[in-house]
């Protein structure tokens, strides 16, 4: 888990380039293919000008459909889509002026790199010299100078996607839509291109809508993430918000690892009972979840869980649960203990540093955390 998003860069938003991004507003958007459930089910989402918004979610959750609705490749069943306040619901894709990046690159195989990149400019009747200038400029931006006369088949996957990127931004579209553009690339190349895409987003300054099912990729790239589940948006927020303040169990489980303690019908109060344990709930959490929750769960991140040899070693005011070590994973700088927690032996995990000593399978421990570190989510 890489849990160190670059907060400083994001807080300031797009730094260089023209701050002329486009706002994309989805208003109660639904797409129904006539299957058991709509592919996209009554989604409302406003993507700010210049924002890097990621649509994240498991396969089949409706991300691509949403992106295709924005692009105009699919027609809306209900709702509307507006670019900078102008309703484009009935505008065909070729007049929406949105760039698009596909997983399989979708370069024109009969055209050279330069001709591919020039394609949208020729469609816009840009003059020859202007085309040459812009193509050279954008190929430099994606670091492909000198490959002008190559055909796509002569390039590697990563290079092809760079060409596609150049082609999608050269005409300065209102926004760039990216549908799992790195999905076909190997791990190293992915991470290199992630950095590249972020740099280009900063330099170009336009709105990016990025689809992925890879939560790490989403965390690395995004200003904000919209988490999709079954055609609906589960939660929208910055990567930190989604990780630190998940509102639903789905969000807590999808982004990063979590220890989940379902409370069932237990009343949410200053104290709560789980499996014979009596836990303290942070006052702020109680305030945020007034009254009783019919169905909720306590979520604690592995890095917030500590282990102790016995109850006596647990600091006062901490919540604790008895745990048995099921397995130890060596992760280099730290280790992950896989635990069986409570009476029922619920799966859990925590991180320990080698300085904390050695642990072996079967060790009986006490897992504990501070009430402030836990989240109450809808289960």
């Amino acid at each position, binding site marked *: 888990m890489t849990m160190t998003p670059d907060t400083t860069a994001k807080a300031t938003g797009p730094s260089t380039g023209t701050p002329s991004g486009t706002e994309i507003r989805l208003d109660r958007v639904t797409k129904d293919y006539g299957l058991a459930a709509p592919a996209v089910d009554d989604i409302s989402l406003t993507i700010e000008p210049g924002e890097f918004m990621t649509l994240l979610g498991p396969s089949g959750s409706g991300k691509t459909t949403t992106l295709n609705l924005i692009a105009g490749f699919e027609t809306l069943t209900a709702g509307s889509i507006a670019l900078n306040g102008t309703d484009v619901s009935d505008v065909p*894709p*070729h007049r929406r002026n949105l760039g698009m990046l596909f997983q399989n690159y979708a370069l*024109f195989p009969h055209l050279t790199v330069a001709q591919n990149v020039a394609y949208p400019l020729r469609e816009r009747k840009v003059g020859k010299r202007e085309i040459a200038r812009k193509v050279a400029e954008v190929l430099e931006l994606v670091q492909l100078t000198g490959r002008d006369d190559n055909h796509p088949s002569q390039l590697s996957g990563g290079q092809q996607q760079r060409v596609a990127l150049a082609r999608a931004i050269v005409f300065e579209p209102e926004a760039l839509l990216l549908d799992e553009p790195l999905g076909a690339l190997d791990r190293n190349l992915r991470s290199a291109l992630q950095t590249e895409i972020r740099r280009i987003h900063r330099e170009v300054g336009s709105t990016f809508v990025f689809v992925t099912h890879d939560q790490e990729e989403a965390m690395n790239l995004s200003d904000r993430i919209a988490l999709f589940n079954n055609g609906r948006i589960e939660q929208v927020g910055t990567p930190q918000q989604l990780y630190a303040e998940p509102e639903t169990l789905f969000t807590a489980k999808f982004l990063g690892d979590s220890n989940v303690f379902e409370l069932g019908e237990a009343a949410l109060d200053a104290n709560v009972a789980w499996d014979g344990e009596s836990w303290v709930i942070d006052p702020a959490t109680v305030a945020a979840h007034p009254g009783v929750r019919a169905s909720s769960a306590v979520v604690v991140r592995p890095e917030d869980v500590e282990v102790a040899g016995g109850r006596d070693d647990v600091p006062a005011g901490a919540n604790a649960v008895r745990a048995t070590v099921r397995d130890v994973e060596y992760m280099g700088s730290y280790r992950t203990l896989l635990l069986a927690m409570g009476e029922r032996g619920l799966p859990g995990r925590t991180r320990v540093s080698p300085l904390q000593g050695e642990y072996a399978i079967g060790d009986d421990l006490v897992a504990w955390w501070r009430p402030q570190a836990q989240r109450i989510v809808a289960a």
Partner: protein
Amino acid sequence: MTTPSTPRRRYTKVDPIPWWLKAFGGLVVVFFILPTLFVIPMSFSDATTFQFPPQGFTWRLYENFFTNPIWLDSLGNSFLVATLTAVLATTVGTAAAVALSRLQGRVAQLVRTLLMVPIVAPAIVVAVAVYIAFLGWQLTGTVLGYVLAHTAIAVPYVLISVTGALGGFDPKLLRAAASLGSSPARAFVRVTMPLISRGILTGAIFAFIVSFDEVVLALFLRSPLFQTMPVQMYNSVTVEIDPTISAASSLMVVAVTIIFLLPQLLRGRVRRR
């Protein structure tokens, strides 16, 4: 259909073809080609009737052919009809192939089958049907009549070759084109057409040849003023016993062969994926 890929040499080493199969293949080739090779020496024969082996050597039959307005006109008519048929059938067939490639389900399947009917229907049945219809519309003996009739039987060939080419075409490219500002029509011209051009060209050539050597429909549609070359050849054997037909046949064989080989000759020029 013309498959441009020849099997690789390596393949024959892995799985050698037995001698008897090669011999049989050779026989089949001879069976198909021999009549054609037979007619070419005949066309240089000095004899005034059909005789084999040919006697002497002379260009006389070719002289006859190129000085006789009946032969020349029929040749010109055939070229005209075949060219127009190629244009019309290629347009219609390509449009049908593109449309059908996007459709699934039973209706599309039905349309596909219907469009193939002219290939399997007996020529004489088609000819009679066309003749009766065209008589009423006064299309017999007209260029339009020939072109329409030949287009009907040529479209399936275009459909087959263009459908084949579309099999390797990634429809995502059309979405890419749309996102880059191309209307559907522009995307067809700038993306689809160049990528399926081989299929279109092959289809056009087939359409041309189907029309160029079609005789049954042409016999029904002929008028004293307008005949195609195959009809004139038919006349020359059945009515006049004119040995010029040897020269005419040879010219047909050469012309058709050249046209058939066009895609191979152009192959290097069209870049493939």
